[in-house]
């Protein structure tokens, strides 16, 4: 019996994406990851008296693009607000965020689950805000690094629409793929560019009233998210079943022990006293700017998956592999453009051969030597019988190494498939003459020897003879 027979799980997510800008949200200090502490900070990030924030225009474009991808209502006028609390990694004593009028309102994301069904997850809002600095605690003191202070973030808030950890993971994976596709966020979970907080509660099966929720904070891998939610679900059920109450609190996940634990409150009250940020007038996204961003939206992974299946007749799995990462999808599409008659073969070769040798990052790199058109050319050579698949497997590593074109390599190394009847006949005759014993056995009925003859002929031709033609000729000659 499953736990889900008696209980409903209810999960909503808050995802913080670090925007892939060069500079901070309100200052021109750099945002590169891993710099020496306090080397990427300027007066605005320090909260020095008299400084004024100036919003990063590129960040605004990113936030709008994310909103469009999630079918959100775009608020062309949005307001920044101060969220007030004291903590040493927040030098101003407030975080500039958006409260009542965020840049994006309601939207939704359709997520494909493993069983092929679709789950629609509502998006409540997306708002822009600045990140805080980082404190480390050592002995009697805490040490503060403000490199992260002012790094631009969007927070994507979902409705509590998810009812299984697998749905949460599928939602987060799709969301991450989208922001990476858009170039809005690098999606790096380990470096904290894509962080998830999950609001988790349980209720008796079918109950309408939601249970008290706990917020699981800053979980940095898909596996940990699943583990943390599973643990938290069972913890809350045990509390309720033993007659206790779930207390609303923020909890952290310890991956080594597989448990969640209550976080020590850094602020005794969540009384943030929001008010409109007086230093920033309302932000207006003009019709022209909005149209420009709409125009520049790439085809998103879900659309590509659907198109690859309908247009190229690929399986859902293959379409997924090819569309999950933008560099791979673009490579595949570039190769298909060169070999438009056989997209299925291109797909097979990308998935089975190219991705064995190279990752999405390799393919995206300027140093990657094989261009999509060259790869398409290689597949075209196979599908037009110029070379066999076996030979192609020898050509690809050479392309990867030298950057030379497939045709060029085939020409230079004399790898063209032999389709000349005379030449093939010569190979076949040689093999028959050299193996009189086996020929007799075959003619006496040992048909399994056919593979042996095929092998011998292919070997004699150094793999270049057209296998179909060899097969035909062998059959007729062996008949005697």
């Amino acid at each position: 019996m499953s736990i889900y027979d008696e209980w409903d799980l209810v999960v909503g997510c808050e995802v913080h994406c670090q925007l892939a800008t060069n500079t901070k949200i309100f200052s021109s200090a750099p945002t590169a990851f891993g710099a020496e502490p306090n080397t990427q900070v300027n007066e605005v990030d320090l909260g020095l008296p008299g400084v004024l924030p100036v919003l990063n225009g590129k960040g605004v474009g990113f936030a709008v693009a994310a909103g469009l991808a999630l079918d959100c209502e775009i608020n062309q006028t949005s307001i920044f607000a101060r969220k007030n609390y004291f903590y040493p990694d927040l030098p101003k004593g407030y975080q500039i965020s958006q409260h009542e009028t965020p840049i994006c309102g309601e939207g939704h994301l359709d997520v494909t689950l493993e069983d092929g069904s679709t789950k629609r997850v509502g998006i409540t809002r997306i708002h822009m805000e600045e990140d805080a600095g980082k404190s480390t605690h050592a002995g009697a003191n805490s040490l503060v690094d403000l490199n992260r202070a002012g790094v631009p973030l969007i927070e994507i808030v979902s409705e509590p629409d998810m009812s299984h950890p697998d749905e949460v993971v599928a939602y987060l994976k799709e969301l991450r793929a989208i922001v990476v596709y858009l170039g809005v966020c690098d999606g790096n979970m380990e470096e904290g560019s894509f962080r998830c907080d999950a609001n988790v509660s349980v209720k008796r099966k079918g109950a309408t009233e939601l249970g008290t929720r706990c917020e699981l904070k800053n979980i940095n891998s898909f596996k940990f998210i699943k583990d943390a939610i599973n643990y938290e679900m069972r913890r809350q059920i045990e509390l309720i079943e033993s007659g206790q109450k779930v207390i609303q609190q923020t909890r952290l996940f310890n991956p080594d022990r597989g448990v969640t634990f209550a976080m020590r409150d850094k602020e005794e009250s969540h009384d943030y006293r929001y008010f409109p940020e007086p230093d920033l007038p309302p932000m207006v996204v003009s019709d022209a700017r909005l149209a420009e961003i709409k125009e520049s939206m790439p085809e998103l992974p879900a659309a590509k998956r659907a198109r690859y299946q309908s247009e190229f007749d690929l399986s859902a799995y293959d379409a997924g592999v090819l569309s999950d990462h933008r560099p791979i999808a673009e490579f595949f599409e570039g190769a298909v453009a060169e070999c438009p008659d056989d997209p299925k073969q291109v797909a097979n070769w990308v998935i089975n051969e190219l991705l064995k040798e190279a990752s999405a990052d390799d393919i995206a790199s300027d140093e990657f030597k094989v261009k999509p058109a060259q790869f398409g050319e290689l597949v075209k050579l196979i599908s037009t019988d110029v070379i066999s698949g076996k030979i192609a497997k020898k050509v690809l590593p050479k392309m990867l190494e030298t950057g030379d074109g497939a045709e060029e390599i085939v020409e230079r190394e004399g790898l063209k498939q032999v389709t000349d009847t005379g030449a093939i006949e010569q190979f076949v005759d040689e093999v028959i003459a050299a193996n009189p014993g086996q020929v007799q056995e075959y003619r006496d009925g040992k048909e399994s020897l056919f593979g042996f003859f095929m092998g011998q002929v292919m070997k004699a031709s150094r793999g270049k003879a057209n296998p179909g033609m060899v097969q035909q000729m062998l059959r007729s000659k062996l008949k005697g």
Partner: protein
Amino acid sequence: MAISKEEVLHIAKLSRLKLSESEVDALAHNLSDILQYVEKLNELDVSGVEPMTHAVPTQMRLREDVVEQRLTRDDLMKNAPASQDGMFKVPKVVSD
């Protein structure tokens, strides 16, 4: 609307202010008076009026995404009462 002493203490705590007993009493009175005065605005009918967030009707100016590095870490630390390993050193902020 009257502000209680407890509310004054709560606001003081959020603002990290230390108040004496007599200050708390005085502030409770003052804040109540201010709120009462402002409550007069409730008499106005503002239905259909957009909430105003800024006094001056102006739009946000945006910045190009170009890095400009003006301060070194040494500059940063000049005002810091204490530092260690290039970081600001502050009293421990989480209790054990």
